[in-house]
C-alpha cells in the first residue's frame, strides 16, 4: 500500500461525503417553499398574537387578559359551552360514524370506494354553503317545518335552529367524515381472519366483535374522536350561523373581541389558551392511538 493510494482513497471518501450532503440538501430544498409559507403565515402571526396577549391596553407587559379570563365568569361559561358542544358533537359522530365505518369496512373494496365518495362529498362543497343549506332546511319557514305542518305532524313551527340543537346538527354533519375516515382506515386494516379465528374458537359474532374487532378499532376511534374534538374546539362559522347568537364558543368570543371591542390583547389571550388546550388533546390522542400512523410515524 503506497501513500499515493491512501491519498486517493481519502479523496474518494471526501467526494462521496460531499455527494451525500448535496443529495440531502437538494431534498431539503424541496420542502423549503412550504416551510417558508408556514413560517410566514403561521409561526410569525401566532407568535405576534402570543406576544400581544401579554400586553395590557396601554402596551405594557402584564397578565391582565389572563387574569380577567379567570375572574370574569362569562369566560368560564364560554369555555364550558365550547367543551360541551365539542364533546356532544364528538359523541354523536362516534354513534353515527362507527356503524357506518364498520359497514364500509365489510364491503368489497370497490363498493366501499364508491360509498367513500358519498362520505367525502361534503368536503367538495364549501362549508358556508353547507351551513346555509341547513338554515334552509331548519328555519321556522324552512323545508322541515313547512312539510311537517303540511303533513299534520306538528301545528306550530318548531325551533330547530338558532339554538344548541341546530348548532349540533350542523357541526355533526360537517365533522362526520373526519370521524369516518380514520375509523375506516383502522377497520380496513383489521385482518378478517382474526374474526374467523375467534368464531372457530367458539366465539359468537357479537362476542367476537367486542373481544377482537372493537379493541383493535380503538386507535382509529381515538384518532377520529381527537380530530373531531379538536376541530370543534376552534369551530367558528357553523356555531355563529346556526347558533343564532345563543351559542357562544371560544372562536365566536375571539371574533367579538376583535370586531366589536377591538381588544386584540384579550382575543390573543383566548387564542393562546385555546391553542394550548388543543395541543394537550392532540398529545393525549397521539398517545392513545400510537402505532396507527395517523399522528405521524408509529412503530
Amino acid at each position, binding site marked *: 500500500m503506497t501513500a499515493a493510494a491512501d491519498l486517493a482513497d481519502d479523496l474518494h471518501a471526501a467526494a462521496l461525503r460531499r455527494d451525500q450532503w448535496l443529495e440531502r440538501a437538494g431534498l431539503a430544498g424541496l420542502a423549503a417553499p412550504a416551510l417558508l409559507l408556514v413560517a410566514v403565515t403561521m409561526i410569525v402571526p401566532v407568535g405576534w398574537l402570543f406576544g400581544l396577549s401579554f400586553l395590557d391596553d396601554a402596551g405594557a407587559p402584564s397578565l391582565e387578559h389572563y387574569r380577567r379570563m379567570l375572574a370574569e365568569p362569562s369566560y368560564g361559561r364560554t369555555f364550558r359551552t365550547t367543551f360541551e358542544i365539542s364533546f356532544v358533537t364528538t359523541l354523536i359522530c362516534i354513534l353515527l360514524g362507527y356503524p357506518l365505518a364498520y359497514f364500509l369496512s365489510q364491503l368489497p373494496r370497490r363498493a366501499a370506494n364508491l360509498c367513500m365518495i358519498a362520505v367525502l362529498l361534503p368536503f367538495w362543497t364549501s362549508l358556508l354553503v353547507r351551513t346555509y343549506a341547513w338554515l334552509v332546511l331548519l328555519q321556522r319557514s324552512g323545508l322541515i317545518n313547512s312539510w311537517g305542518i303540511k303533513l299534520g305532524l306538528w301545528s306550530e313551527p318548531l325551533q330547530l335552529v338558532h339554538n344548541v340543537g341546530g348548532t349540533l346538527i350542523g357541526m355533526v354533519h360537517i365533522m362526520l367524515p373526519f370521524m369516518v375516515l380514520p375509523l375506516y382506515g383502522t377497520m380496513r386494516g383489521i385482518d378478517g381472519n382474526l374474526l374467523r*379465528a375467534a368464531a372457530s374458537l367458539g366465539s359468537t359474532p357479537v362476542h367476537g366483535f367486542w373481544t377482537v374487532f372493537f379493541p383493535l378499532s380503538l386507535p382509529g376511534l381515538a384518532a377520529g374522536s381527537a380530530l373531531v374534538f379538536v376541530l370543534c374546539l376552534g369551530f367558528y362559522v357553523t356555531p355563529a350561523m346556526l347558533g343564532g347568537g345563543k351559542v357562544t364558543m371560544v372562536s365566536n368570543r375571539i371574533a367579538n373581541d376583535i370586531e366589536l371591542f377591538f381588544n386584540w390583547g384579550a382575543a390573543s389571550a383566548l387564542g393562546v389558551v385555546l391553542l394550548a388546550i388543543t395541543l394537550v388533546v392532540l398529545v393525549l390522542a397521539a398517545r392513545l392511538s400510537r402505532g396507527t400512523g395517523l399522528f405521524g410515524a408509529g412503530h
Partner: protein
Amino acid sequence: MRGADDQSRPRDAAVAAAASETALPITIRRLSKAYGAVPVLNEIDLDVRPGEFLTLLGPSGSGKTTLLMAIAGFLRPDSGSIRFGEREVVRLAPHRREIGMVFQNYALFPHMDVARNVGFPLRLRRVPANEIARRVEAALEMFQLGGFGGRGIDQLSGGQRQRVALARAIVFEPRIILMDEPLSALDKQLRERMQIELRQLHERLGTTTVYVTHDQREALTMSDRIAILDKGRIARIDTPRAIYDEPGSRFVAEFIGESSFLDAEILDGECRAAGSIVRARHMPASAGPCTLALRPERLRLLGPGEGEEMNVFEARVTGAIYQGDTLLLQAVLGDGSPITLRQTTRSGEVAMPAIGAPVRIGIAIADTVLLAGDAEGAP
C-alpha cells in the same frame, strides 16, 4: 423410504385406539358452490376417515380453500351436505362447529399476549381460571413455548407464532382440526421442520385433520391421504405413495412430483415410444395414443451391458447440472423429445457426462407409468 409399507406410520397403538373413539369422520356429499356462472365446488363427495390426516392439494383456483372454508362454516355452499359424524352441520354457524382452525397468517389476536390467545377458547367455554392457566401452559409446553405466556405477539418469530396458533387451535380439544396453508409464510428450513412436528402432533392427538396446501412435497410428507382438486372437483384421492407411483392421469402426474412425458402408442398390445418398445406395470386396455410418464429419479444412466428387464432409451445429453445432492441430466431421445434424469451424487459414482455424448437411459418396468390419452393431456 421405498419398500416400507406406508400405511404403518409409527403411531402408538393405545393413543391411536383412544383417538379413533373420539375422532369424528367428515362426510361431504354433492357439495356445490358457484360464484355467478363459475363453479368453485362442483358436486364434491369426500369422506374424511376418523383420525385421518387428509390433505387437499391443488393449484390456485382449484377450490381447495373454498372447500376448507365450507367445512369450517365460513362459506355457505349453494347445495350439498356436510356431516361431522352423524351430525349435519351444513347450516351450523362456525362458532358452534367445535373445530380447531389454523390460518395461513396465524390470525393471532395482536392485542392479547400469548397466554390470553391460547386461553381464548377456554374462557369462552367458562373453564375455571386455574384450569385455564394449567391447560394453556401444558399446550405451550407441547410446542416448546413453556414460559412464553406473558409475551406479546409482536415479540415472537414466525415459527413461534405458528406454534402459538397451533396451541390455540388444539387447547380446547376439538374433534376436528382444519389448517389453511399454515406453513406457507415460513422459510424453507423451518417449514420442513414444522411439517415433521405437525405430523408427530397428529400422531399423538389422532384428531381428524384436513390440511390445505399447494405444495405437493408438503402433502406427500404429511398426509395419510391426499385429495387432489382440479376445477372444483376431486381429481384423485389416495395415499401419497399410490398417487406418486400411479398418478393415473396427466394432471395428477404433472402436479405431484416431476415427470418427463413422452408420446406413446399402443398397437397390437405393444406400446411404442420414441422408437422403443416399452413395457409398463399397468398397460392401458385400449389401443391408441397414450402418454409415458417418467419420474426423473427413477431413470438410470446405464453402463455397457446393463438394461436387462428394463425399458431402455438411446439419448443424447443436452445439459448436466450439479445440484449438490443430485445431478440433473437433460437429454433428448432419438425422436427429439426431452427427458430429465436425476441421480444422487455419491463421490466417484457419477461422472459428469459431456454435452452431446450419447447415453443409454433405463427405467425399471415397475416404475414405468403409462397414462391413457395423448401427451397434450386430452383423455
